[in-house]
């Protein structure tokens, strides 16, 4: 028997699972309407064949393998296959347009690219001339690719067959390569979405990834029995942690949905016990539930309302393990049978023991809705630069407006300017080919600047994030201006999808609003307001009044905090187009690029700071296929009600 090696690389973790739980499912994918599964032993065979195939194409230690596509077992296996050779997987956002892809492929010196399908292959062929290092393209789904003749194009199975042959000729090759790997070696390169400027390649070592993943597992007590659905982009650090690294460390099974459009029903079929979703997903689910409840029969709606009221009153306390009266407890149990249980089942969350959310602030209403149903949803605070975990909310100490306490082995300090810094075993090695950014982010003694402003709450001791440190500004009268704080308050209304607030170095705050087409559309239908599409709906006077009420409520809310009271929104407009990542207005992870939006719509910003009642604008838009068109509209501008500081009553301005 060979000696047990230290489990400090992914191929070694794989080998250990083959020994420990060979017959347990490692991956599942829904194909042709049926869940297909691969055990750890089967996955290992696939990975070995692919690794040898990649080696036969010339992939060597230190080379980069790009992985582009939806969550597919084969794409995850490609990560391990590359890591087995000491090569570095570089997952890319599958919905990125060709230009964005060209930048990353070139910056990373990718040698081989694995593409999911024709769509991705076409993009790669388009930009190939700009990526001199790219030698081979491998594709998984053969559909539509039958007539492609290029000899650098290879079918996935063909590469595996070549690999099996290569393996037979070089019997010791694979094991030798795996043995040569070590914890300090680079495990993966992940590109940050780039809220500012070009994406940066974050280099993470095996130790960074594996130790962080293991710490997360220890803190939450995760086991090999968890069920996880992999549906978030593979290029995003969270997916790499939850659907790949933690699965390899704990040994649990990861399921891939049939397609991006079937996630909701696949979620329900799998019933994950461990689940991650950004706040927008939870928001969406809740919106869908509410829309469907409004269409339900009156008796059902009454029952739903009654038990949801009860859940809001005692559900969170029950989840936190606090004691409630016997009557409340029994009523909650009845509600569980009649409402909460069926609802959780529809949402696919009936088995969920642990649900995380991160990335953006989550609305307190949404957060409490899920918690009151008995779903243990918690916020965490993380970054690509440290393989996610900085802070996590401990069980039983979950508050809507904090991100919890430091994760295992993480140290946090807050500098004089209010910026949060941390140190952890997950701290990245460097930014790829970007020593200046590395030096400005990582201090000499290993602290990483997050760029976020925050403080530890006096009462709970938890970390609270206000905004990006560089975005916190001041109005001309010196009032603190935290745009994201206000935007989040606006976005907590289901009618508002996105908001962009301006005000730094200005006399007062103003806002661009994107309405939520589903929620507002449904609201309009109920009132017999007809509309042809987004632009038309956004311009309806009733809709403008509806949004004004939301803005007024936010202003009232802000007016309670004396430090921020003057940053109430005086004027706002409803944007004539939905902010879109294809137009560069959002990042691929759907974060607003505030300064970009401000420049793109500078005419509207100026109009907000004048007395114009409306403003004409023409905007260039990019369609899904990359073509552009022109969009013209007259955007109305409205004054919001302003409340006087600290007085709950209506202020003088009316």
């Amino acid at each position, binding site marked *: 028997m060979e000696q047990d090696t230290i489990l400090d690389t992914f191929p070694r973790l794989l080998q250990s699972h083959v020994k420990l739980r060979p017959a347990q499912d490692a991956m599942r994918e829904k194909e042709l309407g049926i869940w297909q599964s691969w055990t750890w032993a089967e996955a290992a065979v696939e990975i070995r064949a692919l690794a040898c195939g990649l080696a036969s194409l010339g992939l060597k230690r230190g080379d980069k393998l790009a992985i582009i596509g939806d969550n597919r077992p084969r794409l995850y296996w490609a990560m391990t296959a590359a890591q087995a050779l000491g090569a570095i997987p570089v997952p890319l956002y599958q919905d990125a347009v060709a230009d964005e892809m060209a930048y990353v492929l070139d910056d990373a010196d990718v040698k081989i690219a694995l593409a999911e399908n024709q769509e991705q292959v076409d993009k790669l062929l388009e930009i190939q001339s700009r990526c001199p290092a790219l030698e081979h393209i491998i594709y998984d789904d053969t559909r539509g690719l039958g007539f492609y003749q290029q000899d650098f194009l290879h079918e996935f199975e063909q590469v595996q067959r070549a690999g099996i042959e290569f393996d037979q000729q070089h019997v010791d090759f694979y094991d030798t390569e795996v043995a040569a790997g070590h914890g300090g070696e680079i495990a993966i390169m992940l590109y940050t979405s780039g809220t500012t400027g070009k994406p940066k390649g974050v280099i993470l070592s095996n130790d960074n990834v594996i130790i962080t993943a293991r710490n997360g597992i220890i803190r939450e007590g995760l086991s090999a029995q968890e069920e996880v659905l992999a549906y978030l982009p593979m290029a995003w650090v969270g997916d790499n942690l939850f659907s790949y690294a933690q699965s390899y460390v704990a040994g649990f099974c990861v399921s891939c949905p049939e397609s991006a*459009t079937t996630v909701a*029903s696949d979620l329900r079929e799998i019933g994950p016990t461990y689940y991650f979703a950004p706040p927008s997903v939870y928001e969406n689910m809740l919106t869908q539930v509410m829309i469907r409840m409004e269409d339900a029969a009156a008796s059902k709606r009454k029952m739903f309302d009654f038990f949801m009221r009860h859940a809001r009153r005692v559900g969170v306390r029950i989840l936190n393990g606090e004691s409630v009266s016997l009557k409340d407890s029994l009523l909650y149990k009845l509600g569980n049978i009649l409402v909460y249980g069926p609802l959780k089942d529809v949402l696919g969350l009936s088995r969920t023991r642990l649900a995380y959310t991160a990335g953006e602030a989550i609305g307190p209403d949404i957060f409490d809705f899920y918690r009151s149903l008995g779903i243990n949803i918690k916020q965490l605070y993380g970054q690509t630069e440290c393989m996610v975990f900085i802070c996590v909310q401990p069980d039983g100490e979950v508050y809507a407006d904090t991100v919890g306490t430091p994760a295992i082995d993480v140290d946090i300090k807050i500098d004089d300017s209010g910026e949060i810094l941390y140190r952890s075993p997950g701290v990245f090695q460097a930014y790829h080919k970007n020593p200046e950014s590395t030096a400005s982010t990582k201090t000499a003694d290993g602290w990483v600047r997050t760029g976020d402003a925050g403080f530890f709450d006096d009462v709970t001791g938890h970390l609270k994030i206000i905004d990006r440190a560089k975005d916190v500004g001041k109005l001309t009268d010196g009032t603190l201006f935290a745009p994201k704080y206000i935007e989040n308050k606006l976005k907590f209304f289901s009618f508002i999808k996105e908001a962009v607030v301006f005000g730094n170095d200005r006399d007062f705050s103003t806002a661009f609003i994107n309405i939520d087409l589903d929620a507002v559309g449904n609201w309009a239908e109920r009132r017999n307001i007809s509309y042809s599409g987004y632009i038309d709906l956004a311009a309806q006077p009733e809709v403008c009044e509806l949004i004004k009420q939301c803005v007024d409520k936010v202003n009232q809310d802000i007016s309670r905090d004396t430090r921020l009271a003057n940053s109430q929104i005086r004027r706002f407009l409803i944007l004539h187009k939905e902010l879109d990542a294809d137009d560069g207005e959002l990042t691929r992870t759907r974060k607003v690029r505030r300064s970009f939006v401000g420049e793109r719509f500078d005419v509207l910003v100026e109009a907000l700071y004048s007395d114009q009642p409306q403003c004409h604008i023409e905007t260039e838009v990019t369609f899904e296929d990359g073509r552009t068109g022109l969009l013209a509209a007259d955007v109305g501008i409205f004054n919001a009600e302003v409340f006087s500081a600290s007085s709950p009553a209506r202020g003088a301005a009316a």
Partner: protein
Amino acid sequence: MSARNIGDVILKVDNIDLSFGVMKVLDNISFDVRQGEIRSIIGPNGAGKSSLLNVINGFYHPQQGTITFKGNTRKHMAPHVAASQGIARTFQNIALFKGMSTLDNIMTGRNLKMKTNLFWQALHIGPARAEELENREAAERIIDFLDIQAIRKKPVGKLPYGLQKRVELGRALAAEPELLLLDEPMAGMNSEEKEDMCRFIIDVNDEFGTTITLIEHDMGVVMDLSDRVLVLDYGKQLADGIPDEVRNNQSVIDAYLGVPHE
């Protein structure tokens, strides 16, 4: 990029005349379709395009002329015989079973492939079970191909129009036809839906080698997709040839620009 194989003539229509009473709908129409090609029929409203498809799949019986499909010449044929010989079609006004799911609608397209009798099917045992599994897999492959997994179990009556059109294409494909007749597959679609549908038509032709005859009004689509185009006007054959020839044909230009008929 394209390396498609256009084979021999699979369908030949000779001197077809079709009248309803005194109304002459098709007047001496002759054309052929070769194995593996995409053949379009265009013409203004009332030109006789749909009637011609109805003649091909045996729904209308022409007064004159013959139809030769895969070497068999005939004058009359019932639609179910046409279907069993490998001709499938979609309709201008969607003709799906609105209350049934996408999957069930596509399964009905497999009807001709099912051999076991009602008794076995009702019990769902033995050969009927194996057959059902086999056909379900074929239906699932079509669902995957057309990327409609998300609506697999939804009743088609509740789907948006563009998706219903896609389901209808799926049902026609389920019969594994050699000749696929599409009657205005893109009517009433927006440009994005049209683009998707074009993609599917090209993919069907590429992947399965299915011969396709389609009626379409969008000239851009027709000229991009087709190998050859047949032009009809008031039941008469106006032109026939590759897209470039047709585009530059004076009588076609006249018909489409509305030159008055003497």
